[in-house]
């Protein structure tokens, strides 16, 4: 009896054995994108790619550190000094990671774009999700093409091993065309619907305006990274202006100037009118990426004792617990602000205070630190400070630069007035006016990841940044494609890797 029982058991066990492996407890290609909620979740995964610290910190590592506005503390480890001193190479870690995360964002967006077609959802939802995914793909390619120039172009999801070596784009123009096409399609598909952390029609218009302005000015100033483009500068200035006007025609309560300068940077008001596209993070998250540590990078160390900021009206604000003070504003840049400029007096600090309002001396000495990223309600290292990805004043200045003095003066003066400084000298010609706008951008958008791209598209990197003066403008135009890509992708090799 027992024999038979155990024989039967044995046979049953063996017979019931299929060696095919079924995924358990995780999603994969086979069991996802079945519903609208899946598609929505997949879309937010594409947004989430922006939050990883490799990409997030790239905003400043690439946008500001290499410029005349900001430098890194001397004992900060890693490759930050290579960027600061313009001694980077194809092996520089921080550009390498920035590059990688652009493609992670692209693959996530491509997956949404590919799979939404077969997903059983309403047309309205499909349009919105597809529109946002196209926006995100354009966002990542926009970052890639202005940072690295000609790079591989991947326009569908990578699922199998033989798809992992995408072809190099034919030219930088081919990449810009993808950006323009995706954004135009996104603009058509999306409605105006402001949700904190997400992109809508206005975000698509804003990014398209910025993209058009980038190529227009690049061609106009004959910047090396843009020479190969066939675009007519004036036609593209006009396109940029047209898109920026659409943004400025929005309901000013939703998208408009924020009259209170400090309110723009108030972490408790992430849905302020200035915010067109802002990174979605919150201090209630459990790991970095869900929350950020941006204030720790921007504010100095005081041996674990909290430091306070004092504003012009005497208000004290708790600023930080135990910052690292990595990002330091250059003295010469800070001093280029008018001394009455609130963007200097309120948003850049050298003197910090204790909780009773008495001045304190910091171990790192007296240096300028930006106070654009402060979260008084931080929990340990967790903060809600968020970088702006697209800001209204940025797009307003895009219009001013693209359209010229007639439309531009009121915009520039509105922004200067908010900062408490006099109007721009009237009667400037177009060329001079544009230069003044770009200068104004440096002050208004300081430490927001914009400056390097403004310098590159105007061909002024080597003439503006002391550390870059030893390079040619061609060498400063783009960062090299990372070595691992050259090594492992047979479609990208050093010889045919013409970045322009």
């Amino acid at each position, binding site marked *: 009896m027992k024999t038979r029982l155990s024989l039967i058991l044995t046979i049953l066990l063996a017979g019931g*054995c299929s060696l095919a492996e079924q995924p358990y*407890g*995780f999603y994969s290609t086979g069991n996802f994108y079945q519903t609208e909620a899946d598609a929505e979740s997949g879309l937010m*995964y594409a947004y989430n790619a922006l939050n990883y*610290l490799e990409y997030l910190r790239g905003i400043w590592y690439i946008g500001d550190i290499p410029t005349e506005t900001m430098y890194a503390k001397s004992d900060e480890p*890693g490759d930050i000094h290579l960027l600061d001193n313009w001694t980077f190479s194809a092996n520089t870690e921080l550009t390498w990671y920035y590059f990688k995360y652009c493609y*992670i964002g*692209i693959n996530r967006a491509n997956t949404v774009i590919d799979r939404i077609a077969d997903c059983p959802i309403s047309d309205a939802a499909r349009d919105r999700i597809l529109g946002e995914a196209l926006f995100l793909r354009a966002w990542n390619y926009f970052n890639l093409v202005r940072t690295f120039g000609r790079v591989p172009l991947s326009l569908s999801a990578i699922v*199998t091993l033989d798809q992992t070596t995408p072809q190099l784009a034919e030219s930088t123009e081919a990449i810009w065309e993808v950006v323009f096409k995706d954004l135009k399609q996104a603009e058509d598909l999306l409605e105006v619907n402001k949700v904190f952390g997400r992109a809508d029609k206005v975000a698509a218009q804003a990014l398209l305006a910025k993209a058009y302005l980038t190529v227009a000015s690049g061609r106009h100033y004959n910047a090396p990274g843009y020479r190969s483009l066939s675009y007519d500068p004036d036609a593209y200035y006009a396109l940029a202006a047209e898109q920026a006007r659409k943004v400025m025609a929005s309901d000013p309560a939703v998208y408009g100037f924020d009259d209170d300068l400090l309110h723009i940077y108030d972490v408790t008001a992430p849905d302020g009118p200035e915010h067109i596209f802002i990174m979605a993070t919150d201090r209630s998250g459990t790991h970095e990426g869900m929350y950020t540590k941006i204030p720790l990078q921007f504010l100095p160390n005081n041996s*674990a004792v909290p430091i306070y900021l004092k504003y012009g009206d005497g208000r004290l604000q708790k600023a930080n617990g135990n910052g690292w003070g990595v990002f330091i504003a250059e003295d010469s840049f800070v001093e280029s602000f008018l001394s009455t400029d609130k963007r200097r007096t309120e948003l850049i600090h050298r003197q910090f205070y204790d909780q009773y309002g008495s001045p304190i001396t910091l171990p790192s000495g007296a240096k300028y630190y930006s106070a654009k990223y402060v979260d008084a309600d931080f929990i340990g290292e967790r903060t809600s400070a968020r970088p702006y990805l697209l800001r209204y004043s940025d797009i307003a200045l895009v219009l001013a630069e693209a359209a010229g003095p007639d439309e531009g003066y009121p915009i520039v003066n509105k922004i200067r007035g908010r900062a408490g400084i006099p109007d721009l000298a009237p009667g400037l010609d177009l060329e001079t006016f544009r230069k003044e706008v770009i200068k104004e951008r440096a002050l208004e958008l300081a430490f927001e990841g914009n400056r390097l791209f403004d310098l590159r598209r105007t061909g002024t990197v080597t003439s503006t940044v002391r550390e870059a003066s030893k390079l040619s403008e061609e060498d400063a135009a783009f960062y090299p494609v990372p070595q691992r890509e050259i090594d492992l992708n047979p479609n990208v090799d050093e010889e045919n890797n013409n970045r322009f």
Partner: protein
Amino acid sequence: MLVLTTVLPLWAQTRGISGTVTDPSGQPVAGAAVFSADGKQFTTTDEQGRFALRADAGTVLTVSFLGFTDTTLTVTAAQDSYTVILAPDVQMLDDVVVIGYGAVSKSDLTGSVASVKMGPLSDITSSSVDGLLQGRAAGLQVMNTSQDPGATATIRIRGNSSINGSNTPLIVVNGFPMGEAGSLTSINTADIASIEILKDASASAIYGSRGANGVILVTTRDAKEGVTTATLRHQTVISTLSDKLDIWYDPMLMAQVANEEQTNGGLTPLYIGQTLGGVYYPSLLEIQNGQWAHTDWVDLCLRTPVVNSTTLAVNSASSKASFNLNVNYYDDEGLYKKDAYRKLNLNLGFSYKLLDNLTVSTYGVLSATTRNKMDGLEYGRNPLWPVYNEDGSYYRASATDFSHPLVRLEDYYDQSKGRDIAQSGALDWTIVEGLKFHTQIDYRYNSSVQDIYEASTTSQDAFDNGGIAKVNMDKYQDILSETYLTWSRKWEDRHDLTLMAGHSFDREEKRGLYTTARGFVNDVLRNENMNAGDPELRQIYNDGYYLSKLLSFYGRANYALMDKYLFTLTMRADGSTKFGTNNKWGFFPSGAVSWKVHKEDFLQGATWLNELKLRASYGVSGNQGINSYQTLDRYGMEKFWNGGSWKTVIGPGYEVGRTGANDRYMVWGGISNPDLKWESTSQADIGLDIKVLDSRLRLTVDWYYKVTTDLLREKYLPLTSSYDKIWVNDGSVLNTGFEAELGADIISTRDFHLGADLVFSLNRNRVLSLGDAISSGLSRDARTGMYYEVTGPAIGMFNQNANILAIGKPMNVFYGYRVKGIIQEGADPGFIDAAGQLDQSGELKYLDLDDDYELTGADRCIIGDPNPDFTGSLNLSARWKGLDLSVFLYGVYGADVLYNGYTFSPRVKARRWTPDNPSDRFPRLNNARQYLLSDYFIQDGSYLRIQNINLGYTLDIGKRWFKQARAYFTIDNLYTFTRFDGYDPEVGLDGIYWGGYPKFRRFSLGIELTF
């Protein structure tokens, strides 16, 4: 051999006679059969080897016992009492050896199998048997690197052969594979009858895709027929530290040294009466004036470790049924206060003969463990800090001082409870003579729950978040069925053939749920109720489930021709759910031949020679180091703050690891590789067994050559793919070596026995290939062109990994700079340091190997090899009447150890270089310098340890209800001969010394009563 006191028969008469049966060394033989030729008289000997029966004078009695030659005695009228000394049957000596799915007599072994004698091991107190195997078998490497209560051992057979898969042998208990060797805590050491180590491919390939790392077979005790015994055993171990703790005993010297360190680094001295980082550092004057404490933190943190182990064993057997029960309670109190491990084990074996040809048997294990973890109490804390403030509260050096040991003892809680249940049921059926059927069902259930509470006083994270509570639960379940048929036949007196064929099915399941909560109002409930935490900070941080199935078919043929030429062929096919869809089945064949030279005619005259056997084998086994689901594509999951609430977001790309400083960068995987399969190990082995002089001198030597290919490795993908890595089979490693075991019964008389066992193992390891240099991301040594990759942990102090895998070199060699003494004042450092620190006088004199006068990564080379040149052990055992003594020595030669203690050891700091003390050994103090990993930190980790001395006395009481008593005293780690500067050179395979406290010297006292 028969010894009769008197020989002359007088007249026939039936009467009572008695006798004693012993082996040649005088040990009584229990259970031996004593019977007359006609079968009318029959009895068996008792525990003392005694027998009594009634017989006529002239009756010939036969005395028979397994493993000995049958001996006859003729009853005489003149003698009532006889002594019979049984001679061991050379054929049967050491008797049967368990191999996978069967057993063979040792003399018929064709593969390389080592047997471990359990005798002396049972007297050593340990939570598991694995760690005790150190030095007990050639080719077996055992490292006991942790002394924490309940710590496990690292075990290797014939070297490391895998980089990313496991290197640990499979452990099989009574035919039930119980996972990886090293932590067999659920089986009581005293319940183990024998341990066999399967080393070569012929022996281990029968375990197929799990056999590549070798197999350890454990067989538990059986009861002897007709004998009932109960044994009560208690052991107590008290440990002391074998070295003085290297901490600051003189606070003044500590402060002076700290100031010098700062000053030399161009920094402000510390002890000048200042507050830095919230900590007040008194001035030297304040210290001298006695204004500050001189706290003995060691006394507050540590205690004398004590282990108590109590075992009760009861067994009994009749001709039909037998059972064996073994219960053990093990209580291990560690060095740190409150650091403890407790275990209760119950092992029960039972078998019953249903019919003459049908036996059912079961073996069950119940094990309950509790681990209260309180390690890392800071006994080296600054002696200047007082224990208490004046108001009686604990003194904390600053708001962020979380290392006060008394605070930690009160406010930190970490307890793990484990339950392990294993049950086997087997049926053995002899269908007809020569055809046997065996089927076995094994089930194992293992669960553990870990409760952790870190009060806000115990860590920065807990302080920032208002306490951290964790509940981590793991469950493991395994069901296995094995069925095989064995057919054997002998014919024409020349042929002996045994065939075995079977199949097995194994289903393993793992489940884990790890939760955490933060933000508690107070610490009263600890982690009793996770809901008391802040709702926003509650998290399930690991929720895993793994299922794997392994379906196997296996077979073996053993053929012996004229009992001289032996052949073995084995074959196993393994199909696993873990393997990629394109490689579901693996095939693992092996073959062996053996020649019993001593049976040849030309050696028949050599009576001194008892055995001379040559063996050769070759085969392939596998290592299924792949995890479940590793070949599938896998989406990642994140939380995204969407318009004011957290949403779960899902898509392609899955975090498979971290890299970079502080592990800040994510590594992305998740793309599928349907070709992924097991690692393959091919091994050739040539061996020789010799026994001479009545088998009193025994030698076994083996040489092996083992190549592992298809190493499981990660290959990099282009960045544009959005994936970093994919798992592939690529790369190979070679292990080749020589092993010898020499055993001798030097003196062997009835009352006195002196024996020695020498074990020698030598292994040479070499990385043959690591795949394509570029896609594998290999680094290149600029001077030699050697390709390598870093492995093991990054060492923060040096800002680099210590170990590398370099093509053509042994695994885990150390890679770094070379140092030759200290830069003396006025001397040329030989290089320039850009940071202006390392080229100063009093610093280490690094060698500028590439002659560019700069110190760069290109000046590095291989600076050491943590793999030993050889290991050896010697066990001497002596017995005189009831008194026994054994001394066990274990040694490792030629293993390099990375010892970074020079950078923080107070002993060394006191002997630093100063202009007045131009040491060429210890550099100046300097807090601003970045130490480079160099051969300055590489030490010869060779050692010879008096591992164990055991003195015991056994008293035969011989009463029916009280048979025997034994008491013994054991010292572990009596002394270690070494030139190593740290506490102890026994470190892990990577050769990195991680500090910790000195090795215990353990004194244990045991008592054993047999009823």
